[in-house]
């Protein structure tokens, strides 16, 4: 779907000739002539205008009746009046009508001071009312959900919240009940409005009808300041504005960036700010003495860390978690690699350097906005609403408004299935076989065999290939493949067929098409590019000898080969896929130095030195969005007294070991990083600014992406040739030996798939308002398997493999494929990473 082109036209508004883009709605076009037309229901983000509030009536010459400016596209030569008596009377009428039932309780209304109804009444209203009857009454305020309060008396029925629920997030919960003046907003079934994006209606509401439960009565607009930054709670990296009062974050608002978030936020991003000021937060350094963590002075903590690192003789490893900034990651890899001479540093990229170079090729990159305008989007092995929530809204928008064809290929049923033209399932862990089958369908290779190994229907694989191939009609279509990092677990067995697929679809160098990978960690892409990798340094340069990746680090530590673990914003027992080996590693390590905000299990039980971490509202630095956009984190509030910036600590530790790098501010770290990464050349925080910069959009920087011979060269050659159907001159990757879906069912075991809920985060657990959403383990399985195992929906079960078990509640889903079971990872107890897989057995729990 090509993006619409805009042509300029000239029209007249209030006697002035003004240029504006053709077909822009009059209310927007008027702004080109510095004319404001008041609106309530109009919100272009919600799609086509509805013309409900009638606030924007204007006079257009040649049309007898007044027209709504929100729904009238501007045409060349149009003559518009907004200041005539007739228009003013009409607008004043609408204000009068809106206010007759609106309680004039502005002094005690949370919206007061930032209320569009106040502004419009002041600007366009008559200043008095002739209405002397009793106003409409409702019970109020009510909890629309634990996060949102609704005051129906204040509601002006502009439809915005209902449209959001029906047409944007498509949770279909909010509706208008009754009709005429008795109309009111509520959920269809009367249950609380709980949905991943529900908080957006707070910002959409133009009056004080919907207010935030956690923010209610906390501040007035003149008490607060808003500070722009980026949310680091997931890879979507939405742009936010923190509402700050007296150095406390009291609210998070969307800071619209069309290229990143379209002005929306998920509820985690909107409400998890409460964790910043949670009591559980670590705000002083700690050292373990006699098995107990105790608060100590910074000097003591730093001494302890220095002693541990100094005494390790290079037998140390560093691991960075998702919320680590580029600068922190850069300094960590320098500390471990250059200062202490250990090659063992990782950020859980899960792929080797050549794979990262191939998939990260600038010519193959798609952007978030491409999801909305492509002919076809293939969602491969990711659940956007959990993995990068805001992309879920973008995909729905593309399908709904631009008729993007959506294909979903996942092992777990996706919430996007109902929107998809085609949904294909494969067995958990069989990504390599599935992608091999799909790629073979393009090149005339064997499809049946890998499809069977993937537990996928070969016919569906062919159908998917046809959809991708024919989406553009006669021309090759723009295809975006949105894939989850977990898809790449089998390395080259997946990347090779995936790149062949990219070649077959002609994605290389094609604007509007490409690959978009969703990392598991917020700043996964930035950390890779900063060199937090076992086999590559900053800028993905080759290193003399490769170190261990995350799991290798755990194994080596458990085996006594490494003695000090440096954990930067990560809790391996929770974040890493294999818990057992990490338990052994943490037991075996002589020192575990951790930067942490909360005493989660690893920190609580195993850390020997704890440095309190900055919250994301306090942090300064840069991140890289999954589509390559460098974004800037700017501090909104000061740090608690006991907290120091991680870059300072890392530099202090390097200096104490004799390495003077001249990192005096975080910006000097940024400059050093940009100097070290060839494809960041010439960038600065000023250039990144408030909205970020995609580095690969600059040709010189794109050309600086490291080139490599061998496999990658062969693949890029293939990708560049863009054949639409031909036999590859590249040898077929061997079909991965996987278990077919059927294998599980015969011996009574099920194949284990995992997923991480949007709510599985320490920040959610620490935010009082969100606590009720924090997930408990449940195992999803098909009704057929459940019947065979004699398990009913809602029953307590144990899921086990190789001696390890977790407790869960059985959750039967009709869409769930037979032979598979899905467990959540990333939760504090009974997480999926306790189990090894690939097969698990489910039994009824024995009552305690």
């Amino acid at each position: 779907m090509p993006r619409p082109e805009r042509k300029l036209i000239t029209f007249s508004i209030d006697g002035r000739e003004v240029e504006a883009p053709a077909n822009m709605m009059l209310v927007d076009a008027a702004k080109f002539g510095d004319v404001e037309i008041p609106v309530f229901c109009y919100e272009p983000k919600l799609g086509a205008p509805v013309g409900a509030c009638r606030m924007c009536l204007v006079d257009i010459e040649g049309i007898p009746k007044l027209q709504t400016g929100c729904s009238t596209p501007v045409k060349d030569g149009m003559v518009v009046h907004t200041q005539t008596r007739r228009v003013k009377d009409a607008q004043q009428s609408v204000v009068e009508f809106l206010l007759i039932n609106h309680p004039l309780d502005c002094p005690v209304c949370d919206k007061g001071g930032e209320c569009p109804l106040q502004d419009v009444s002041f600007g366009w209203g008559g200043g008095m009312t002739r209405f002397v009857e009793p106003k409409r009454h409702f019970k109020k305020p009510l909890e629309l959900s634990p996060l949102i309060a609704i005051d129906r008396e204040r509601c002006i029925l502009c439809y915005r919240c209902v449209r959001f629920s029906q047409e944007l997030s498509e949770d279909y919960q909010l509706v208008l009940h009754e009709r005429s003046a008795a109309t009111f907003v509520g959920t269809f079934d009367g249950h609380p409005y709980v949905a991943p994006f529900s908080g957006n209606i707070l910002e959409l509401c133009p009056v004080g009808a919907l207010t935030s439960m956690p923010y209610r009565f906390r501040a007035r607009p003149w008490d607060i300041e808003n500070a722009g930054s980026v949310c680091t709670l997931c890879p979507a990296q939405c742009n936010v504005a923190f509402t700050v009062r007296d150095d406390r974050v009291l609210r998070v608002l969307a800071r619209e960036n069309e290229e990143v978030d379209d002005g929306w936020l998920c509820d985690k991003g909107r409400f998890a700010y409460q964790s910043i000021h949670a009591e559980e937060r670590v705000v002083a350094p700690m050292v373990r003495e006699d098995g107990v963590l105790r608060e100590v002075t910074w000097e003591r903590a730093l001494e302890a860390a220095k002693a541990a690192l100094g005494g390790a003789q290079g037998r140390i490893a560093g691991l960075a978690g998702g919320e680590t900034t580029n600068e922190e990651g850069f300094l960590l890899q320098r500390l471990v690699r250059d200062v202490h001479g250990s090659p063992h540093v990782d950020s859980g990229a899960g792929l080797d350097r050549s794979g990262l170079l191939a998939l990260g090729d600038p010519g193959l990159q798609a952007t978030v906005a491409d999801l909305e305008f492509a002919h076809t989007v293939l969602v491969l092995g990711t659940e956007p609403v959990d993995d990068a929530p805001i992309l879920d809204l973008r995909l729905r928008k593309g399908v709904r408004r631009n008729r993007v064809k959506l294909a979903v290929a996942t092992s777990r049923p996706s919430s996007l299935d109902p929107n998809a033209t085609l949904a294909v399932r494969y067995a958990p862990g069989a990504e390599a076989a599935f992608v091999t089958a799909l790629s073979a369908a393009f090149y005339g290779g064997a499809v049946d065999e890998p499809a069977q190994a993937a537990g996928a229907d070969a016919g569906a694989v062919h159908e998917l290939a046809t959809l991708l191939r024919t989406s553009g009609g006669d021309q090759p279509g723009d295809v975006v493949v949105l894939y989850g990092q977990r898809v790449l677990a089998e390395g080259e067995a997946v990347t090779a067929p995936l790149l062949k697929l990219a070649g077959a679809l002609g994605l290389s160098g094609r604007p509007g098409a490409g690959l978009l990978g969703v990392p598991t960690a917020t700043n996964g892409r930035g950390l890779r590019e900063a060199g937090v990798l076992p086999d590559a340094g900053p800028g993905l340069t080759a290193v003399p000898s490769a170190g261990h990746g995350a799991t290798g680090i755990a194994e080596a530590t458990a085996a006594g080969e490494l003695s000090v673990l440096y954990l930067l914003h990560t809790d391996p027992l929770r974040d890493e896929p294999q818990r057992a080996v990490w338990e052994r590693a943490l037991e075996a390590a002589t020192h575990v130095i951790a930067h942490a905000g909360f005493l989660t299990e690893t920190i609580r039980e195993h850390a020997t030195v704890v440095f309190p971490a900055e919250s994301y509202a306090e942090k300064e630095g840069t991140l890289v969005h999954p589509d390559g956009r460098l974004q800037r984190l700017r501090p909104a509030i000061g740090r608690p007294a006991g907290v120091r910036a991680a870059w300072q600590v890392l530099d202090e530790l390097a200096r104490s070991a004799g390495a003077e790098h001249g990192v005096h501010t975080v910006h000097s770290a940024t400059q050093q990083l940009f100097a070290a990464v060839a494809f960041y050349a010439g960038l600065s925080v000023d250039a990144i600014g408030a909205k970020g910069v995609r580095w690969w959009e600059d040709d010189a920087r794109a050309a600086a992406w490291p080139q490599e011979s061998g496999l990658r060269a062969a693949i890029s050659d293939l990708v560049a040739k863009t054949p639409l159907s031909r036999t590859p001159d590249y040898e077929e990757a061997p079909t991965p030996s996987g278990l077919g879906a059927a294998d599980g069912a015969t011996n009574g075991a099920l194949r284990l798939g995992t997923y991480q809920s949007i709510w599985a985060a320490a920040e959610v657990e620490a935010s009082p308002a969100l606590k009720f959403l924090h997930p408990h383990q449940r195992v999803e399985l098909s009704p057929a398997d459940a019947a065979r195992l004699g398990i009913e929906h809602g029953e307590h079960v144990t899921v086990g493999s190789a001696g390890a078990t977790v407790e869960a509640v059985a959750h039967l889903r009709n869409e769930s494929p037979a032979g598979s079971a899905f467990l959540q990872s990333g939760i504090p107890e009974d997480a999926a990473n306790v189990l090894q897989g690939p097969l698990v057995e489910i039994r009824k729990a024995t009552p305690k």
Partner: protein
Amino acid sequence: MSSAILFKDIDEPGLGTLAVYQRRGGYGDVLRKGLSMPREALVNELVESGLRGRGGAGFSMGKKASFMPKGGMDKYLVCNADESEPGTFKDRELMTKSPHMLIEGMILAAYAAGATKSFIYIRGEYAQQADILDAAVAEAYADGLLGENILGFDFSLELVVHRGAGAYICGEETGLLDSLEGKRGNPRLKPPFPANQGLYQGPTLINNVETLMTIPHILGMGAAKYAEIGVENSTGTKLISVSGHVKRPGNYEIELGMSAREIIYGLCGGIEGDHEVKLWFPGGSSSPVLTSDDLDLGYDFDSLAKAGSMLGSGAIIVVDDQTSVVEVCLKLAKFYRHESCGKCTPCREGTQWTVKMLERMKSGTATPMDLDIMASVQEQITGHCLCVLGDAMAMPVGSMIAKFRPEFEEYIEAARERAERELVASLDAGLVGSAT
């Protein structure tokens, strides 16, 4: 009556069955003739007949059909059988007695519009008529008159009878379409008009029952001949539903242009109790009222428009001089307040404000200033709404205030005095202020 077209055989026993309808010439030569004509010729025939929509807006039926785009997309025909304008009951009789005539009209209209799927959206209260239509549609399908290749022609049509749930607003064409799609029945913003983006975003021709039923007759007698009936710009016959204080209320088929006096005093036998006409609604409760001074107007689209009202759905409601205009006004306003969908501000708030003011007039707590406010509120509604429902209250209410202002003032004064008297009496009786 000699001019009867739609009502010609209406009381024929068993006309609702396929056998009798066919014996009377239904589904015969006329249908064959229509289906063998090129589409454009059929549309042209409708344009030349001068047939104007019988549902209320009075737009040229042929022109509306000509707006349907060419092309291979899915197109729809929708019959608006949500007859809910107060005072209107003509479609009910037509559907009860001659359902096949509607089906035949729809086949022809669908053919002209290039639609292959059609719906009859019938108001929920017309359960009996919906059952009759269901049976007739089943008969038509069984006889090959609906479905694939009708009468062997290269034209196929599906027809579904859909029952509404009784909302007045679902008679507004875009509200009807939303309701038919399974949504809350709210009017849509226009443009786009249904001919471009209607049902399921596809081009849609939407017409009233009577309009569609007239088509076979136009084709039967020829457009030119049909156009000779009636007066200029108002051709043909029209079914009118007369109700109120007349001696013989009911449905009548008249040639357009007949005078109102002839209708009320001739056809309907004059006013009950031989009182005088105080006011009459010429085209349903949404039309601005006319008075006894207007009885010599020709009953046609242009004459009524010139007099500041409209022909609307052809429902004449006659109110005699024994009835209070304020009571009529309140009853009317209450109806529109109840039926407003609540989507747009002026209608939602304006209708309920008007009712509240009228209720105060009745209870004796209003002043003549309220009359000014009420008149101004009607002006604030008119022309400012998303659909015509707001205007449908504001125009008749506005016209009543304009034409009967002294009566309103007297009523307000009398009600105030009555209320005061009652208050004093209750004080005397010790009913107020006693702590019970």
